[in-house]
């Protein structure tokens, strides 16, 4: 995973609430065996509408997406995070995220930043004309107009993102503890393993 310390750029003022995973990337696009190329299918049903914010030249090359409450609800498809990444989005700012989506975003170095609705309202305004900056060190979102909103993130996730750590490597360093757990279960709960058919 690439380290993410700062994201700076134009933001798409999308703002919609309860954006489900099927809207982010529909099932037809899930037949791939790769993580790449999904940006083309992102927000397909919305992009079919004339005057949609995603195809507005004003926001071409935007690296941030601003959305409403409960972003990414529904399916566990990581394709939603891959599609956003493939369309060049590095961070999503919303009042709240579904649990699975925020985890999927994190695993791909995509920032899912939760801020209160009034901050979102302000950023939606700023996004129309100016860039936004997200700083992971100070955990803040700032604008050229002296706005400054701080966000929270668990320290482990913050560190992983800033250092680009591979979570599997981190866990494999704990293989003794995993083996100890397996030994404990094997002796205390003999019934535990699936019976081989």
């Amino acid at each position, binding site marked *: 995973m690439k380290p993410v310390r700062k994201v700076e750029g134009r933001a798409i003022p999308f703002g919609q609430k*309860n954006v489900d995973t*099927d809207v982010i990337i529909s099932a037809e696009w899930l037949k791939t065996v790769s993580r790449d190329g999904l940006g083309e299918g992102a927000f397909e049903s919305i992009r079919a509408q004339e005057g949609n914010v995603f195809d507005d030249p004003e926001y071409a090359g935007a690296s941030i997406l601003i959305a409403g409450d*409960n972003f990414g609800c529904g399916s566990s498809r*990581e394709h939603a995070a891959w599609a956003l990444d493939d369309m060049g989005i590095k961070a999503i700012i919303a009042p709240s995220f579904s649990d699975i989506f925020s985890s999927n975003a994190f695993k791909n170095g995509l920032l899912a930043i939760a801020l209160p609705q009034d901050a979102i309202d302000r950023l939606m305004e700023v996004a129309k004309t100016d860039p936004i900056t997200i700083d992971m060190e100070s955990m803040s979102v700032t604008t050229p107009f002296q706005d400054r909103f701080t966000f929270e993130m668990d320290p482990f996730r913050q560190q992983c993102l800033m250092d680009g750590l591979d*979570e599997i490597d981190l*866990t494999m360093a704990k293989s003794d503890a995993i083996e100890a*757990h*397996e030994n404990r279960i094997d002796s205390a709960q003999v*019934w535990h393993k699936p019976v081989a058919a």
Partner: protein
Amino acid sequence: MSFRRLNYPLTTDAMEQNKPKTLYEKIWDAHVVDQRDDGTALIYIDRHLVHEVTSPQAFEGLRKAGRNVRRPDLTLAVPDHNLPTTPRIDADGNKIPIADPQSAAQLEALEANAPAFGIKYIGASDKEQGIVHVIGPEQGFTLPGTTLVCGDSHTAAHGALGALAFGIGTSEVEHVLATQTLQLSRSKSMEIRVEGLLGPGISPKDLILHIIGVIGTAGGTGHVIEYRGEVFEQMSIEGRLTVSNMSIEGGARAGLIAPDEKTFAYLKGRPMAPKGADWDAAVAYWKTLPTDEGAIFDKSVTIQAADVAPTVTWGTSPEDVVPVTGHVPAPDSFADASKQDAARKSLDYMGLTSGQAMSDVAVENIFIGSCTNSRIEDLRAAAQVLDGRKIADGVKWAIVVPGSGLVKAQAEAEGLDKIFTASGFEWREPGCSACLGMNPDKVPPGERCASTSNRNFVGRQGPGARTHLMSPAMAAAAAVTGKLTDVRELMDVN
């Protein structure tokens, strides 16, 4: 064993030990491999179900990093999402090729990856094949008190057996394959207490749709739900699976129901469940799992069972529910401006008008199936309504898709397939089918479907498809009349 009375103050650890715990806390505590200071923990995963859509990139990741699957014996793979539900073997016993090259490639990837990594694989033409969330419990792979994951959000279903089960993304699938653990933060706990019992003709699907209507699609975000109350104690395992399955539609990754005698009776003798003395030891352990008296939930919601009617959705979010006896709501009736806006868009997409009676809404397509409602009891409930009746003239497409080959065989042994086909339904092979538009079973644009699946999102059943979620009996009733119908009118409910 004897107990010594303690006459000195308890230490913090001992107090922690004696504190009444919820079912969720008990399962969590039993699976902590490593606890971090920041509250997150490395949690051991006992069971991992794998299907073709969310796994190819995970296996590819393992290959690139030169890693193995740590515990192939705790992993089970089966194709379901992409598989066409038309016959898979021709008259000569040869495999019928899959027309869509992308689907075929994804299915071939799983068929190759599973044996390459030593994972048990149930293939498309095996009699045990089916939807992951149907075969897990059916095979006895899912057990109470275990942690179970799958790259699919409806993994919540397995909570019906008292397993801590939740959906994960593909990076997490790879993490579990490599390490048999996940790095997790403890969720908050949420009790959904249902008081009283369901009325005649009201099913578990009506109950869970009603619950989602009350809590909303984000009501359970950050929480693990436990469903409590007599209605769940009396409910069959199939019914409990329907309820737990849709926990994710209420925002909760997992939805548990305490294991009890019904759970044990359901699991006993299943192929992968423990046998003999191991079975007795397992049951003794499982009996210690239910939430202790006095345990505290972070959030509690009480639902009156008497308030639950046969329920259908009107919009494009599972929280958009209304009794079938009700009317399409007016967007202005919602308090929040953004919900008003969302409701307007939903009505436009759904082609409905405020104030329209739900029972006047005509449907052209009927889908009975999905991991929510494709088990034997679901098929029995639908067949009971269809017995001796025909689908209405306006219904162009009606399919029944059993959740697994074993469900299909059981239904055929009971003669249910004959009832379905006599009424005009197609009797299909097991799979996810028209629940999501990624195999040939799709609802045409602009057409309506009475569906027993779990999501009514825009385009979920195919681009432009209009989905109304409901129970199997209600979908059968809609098939007979050609419009959304209160199934109680077709049943002798007294």
